[in-house]
């Protein structure tokens, strides 16, 4: 029996209504318990800030696309070699072999795990996995130490699903979704640019409305895809039903598309991801402006709708998405390296390494729109932190993002230095006084993502929760404070000690296996036999 008492820290546990109270957190065998004997091992956290471990609701860390991105940026690996951490013996006296790797915007697998843990993050979800490549994702996650992880399965442009919609066989969709999530060991349904990736494969580069027919079928539209998958996922009572990346990402005026998508699934649980990239007013080819206010107004009226921001931070990033059409646009804008992949009948993929510049008018607007979404947010529980790592910025920029949210003077200073062209009339340029409190930061980085993801064991420090805990040394420089936690506990194991990564246990996997009518397998097998490169029998992970 291993025990540990984190004593005397200032605890932020918003899920249990604790906002900066001094108390002890007791851990026994990886779980938080009410009390421990007085002589239990103790970690003195007096004067320090104690929060649950961070949870990243949307990142690209382990997918075949991420591996392709790694191959695309060898020069970043050269510039950021990652030494193997100096690991101590684990609790059983065994040495877990430490691994060297490479960093940059798309770190190697082991380095990804080490760096997340070093930042106080203990759970990460990979946001875009093509079903046929799920095996690759799980192999990569097996080599991503410390963090608990799961993945979202791309279904918004899936040929079998689109066929069912065309045939009006919507009753089959729920069974197909359930079978697919089980077969791929996925956690949630991901929809990327519904219908738009399929249209991109037909060389149609723009989704004008949610009622554009896909593949010449009147019944198959972005709206029909959103409705069908959201309904199916909610009916299956998934912990995290649908994770939606809307159409027209990164295009001025797309806030109309985003609001239309939100209304389409209104009344049902749905999560809209990296909404920053989908909250632009203005008009294509003419003007750009912030649409963050409209999104905030919608969210205020719809408690069933949640989102993560997908903040852009200035500096190098690597855009990785299933939205191949978008990546083509991005490539034509920066002329840089570009990868486009057609993932047979399921989805697409595009990758473009990108550098966000504060001197660029569009990039500056993106930065502002993200911050506005946070600062105008009606409810921190439903507008949570992400940078869509590594699309808007890498996860290593979270501390600086937290600093921007908590410190108005720091934020206004940065705001002055950026390109002002498209900022006229934006709420942030007019001045927003709001500063996030430590309690609110604990919501947008821990408690909120846990609730949205339906993770009852995580994101809080109540009795019975997983002992994933981060302890920070209080510092007015929030970038520094959040970049270097003093202690990190993962599943009861002390992984970061005095700011040094010392242990690297294996994390757990989160997946769902909903029930379904097995008759669907016969139909799917028939489809596989006709059209797929992989046999039905070999498909499931």
């Amino acid at each position, binding site marked *: 029996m291993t025990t540990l008492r984190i004593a005397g820290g200032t605890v932020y546990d918003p899920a249990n209504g604790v906002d900066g109270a001094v108390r002890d957190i007791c851990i026994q065998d990886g779980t938080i318990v009410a009390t421990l004997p007085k002589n239990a091992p103790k970690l003195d956290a007096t004067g320090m800030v104690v929060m649950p471990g961070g949870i990243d609701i949307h990142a690209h860390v382990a997918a075949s696309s991420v591996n392709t991105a790694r191959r*695309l*940026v*060898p*020069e970043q690996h050269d510039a950021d070699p990652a030494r193997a951490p100096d690991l101590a013996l684990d609790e059983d006296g065994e040495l877990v072999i430490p691994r060297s790797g490479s960093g940059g915007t798309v770190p190697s697998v082991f380095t990804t795990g080490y760096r997340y843990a070093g930042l106080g993050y203990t759970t990460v979800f990979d946001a875009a996995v093509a079903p046929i490549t799920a095996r690759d994702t799980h192999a990569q996650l097996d080599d991503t130490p410390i963090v608990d992880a799961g993945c979202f399965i791309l279904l918004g442009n899936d040929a079998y699903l689109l066929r069912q919609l065309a045939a009006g066989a919507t009753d089959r969709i729920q069974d197909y979704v359930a079978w697919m999530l089980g077969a791929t060991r996925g956690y949630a349904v991901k929809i990327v640019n519904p219908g738009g990736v399929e249209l991109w494969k037909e060389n149609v580069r723009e989704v004008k409305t949610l009622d554009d027919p896909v593949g010449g079928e009147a019944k198959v539209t972005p709206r029909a895809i959103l409705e069908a998958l959201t309904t199916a996922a909610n009916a299956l009572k998934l912990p995290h039903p649908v994770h939606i990346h809307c159409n027209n990402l990164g295009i001025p005026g797309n806030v109309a598309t985003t609001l239309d998508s939100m209304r389409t699934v209104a009344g049902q649980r749905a999560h809209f991801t990296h909404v920053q990239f989908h909250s632009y007013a203005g008009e294509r080819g003419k003007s750009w402006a912030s649409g963050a206010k409209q999104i905030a107004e919608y969210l205020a009226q719809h408690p069933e709708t949640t989102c993560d921001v997908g903040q852009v931070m200035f500096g190098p990033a690597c855009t990785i998405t299933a939205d191949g059409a978008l990546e083509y646009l991005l490539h034509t804008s920066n002329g*840089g390296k570009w990868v486009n992949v057609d993932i047979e009948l399921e989805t697409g993929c595009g990758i473009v390494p990108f550098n966000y510049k504060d001197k660029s008018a569009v990039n500056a607007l993106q930065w502002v729109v993200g911050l506005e979404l946070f600062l105008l947010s009606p409810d921190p529980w439903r507008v949570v932190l992400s940078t869509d790592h590594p699309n808007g910025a890498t996860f290593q920029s979270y501390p600086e993002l937290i600093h921007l949210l908590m410190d108005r003077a720091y934020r206004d200073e940065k705001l002055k230095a950026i390109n002002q062209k498209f900022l006229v009339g934006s709420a942030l340029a007019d001045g927003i006084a709001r500063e996030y409190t430590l309690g609110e930061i604990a919501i947008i980085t821990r408690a909120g993502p846990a609730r949205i993801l339906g993770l009852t064991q995580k994101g809080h420090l109540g009795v019975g929760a997983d002992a994933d805990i981060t302890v920070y040394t209080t510092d007015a420089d929030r970038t520094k404070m959040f970049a270097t936690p003093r202690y990190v506990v993962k599943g009861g194991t002390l992984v970061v000690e005095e700011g040094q990564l010392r242990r690297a246990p294996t994390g757990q996997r989160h997946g769902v296996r909903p029930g379904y009518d097995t008759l669907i397998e016969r139909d799917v097998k028939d489809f596989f036999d006709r059209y797929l490169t992989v046999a039905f029998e070999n498909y499931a992970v």
Partner: protein
Amino acid sequence: MTDRITITFDTLPSGGEGLELDGITPDRLLTLSNAEIAKLPVWMGRRSVPLGDIAAIQGELSAHLRFEGDLARAEGVGAGMASGVLDVTGSVGDGAGVAMRGGSLRIGGSAGMRLGAALPGASRGMLGGEIVVTGSVGAEAGAYARRGLIVVRGDVGDSAARGLIAGTLVVFGRVGADAGTGNKRGSIVVLGSTAVPPTYRFACVYRPTVLRVLFGYLRRAYSIPVADRFVAGRWKRYCGDISELGKGELLTWAEA
């Protein structure tokens, strides 16, 4: 403080491992004592060894670094250097001066592939500085250079100055196939012979003032005996790569 730091490398066992010397540059050694230099790690095959174990080091605290001894299998000599002078008495291996940013790299012998080129995958290579090679060099010399000057007194291999952004490559000898493909606005100057790539267009024959300035500089700064017929002569100018931006140039000597 001494006039110069001289590092004399031991002869490598034949057929054995190569050396990687990309960290050993004058800008990095500038503030190090002799003992600190000896402790710097270098890769020898799969092993990291202290520099002092494979070379004798004389001098300290100088911006002028000299390499002596057998470096024919040493990779990355002067790679990434930012300032100072690195002169090498003999020949070097692949990747010398890769991603160089400033300073002067002088190679007394020949060099391998990717002289002054980009790191694999990088969109930009050399950003500044000067490289002068007495002998010949391998393929991809000066690839993706954005600035800087590379002078090769012998021949260069295939794909020289591939993807050149805005640097300058001067070749006294022969140039291999496909020189300057993807050239945006860089200059390739050939005193010897070259095939003109199909994506370059003939522009004119003229006496470029810039070459008089350049050759004057090479005579003064590097004591290179450039014959008068090149300095005062007429040159053919080809524009390219017209499948890219097309603002680059290939200059070949026409007549005295």
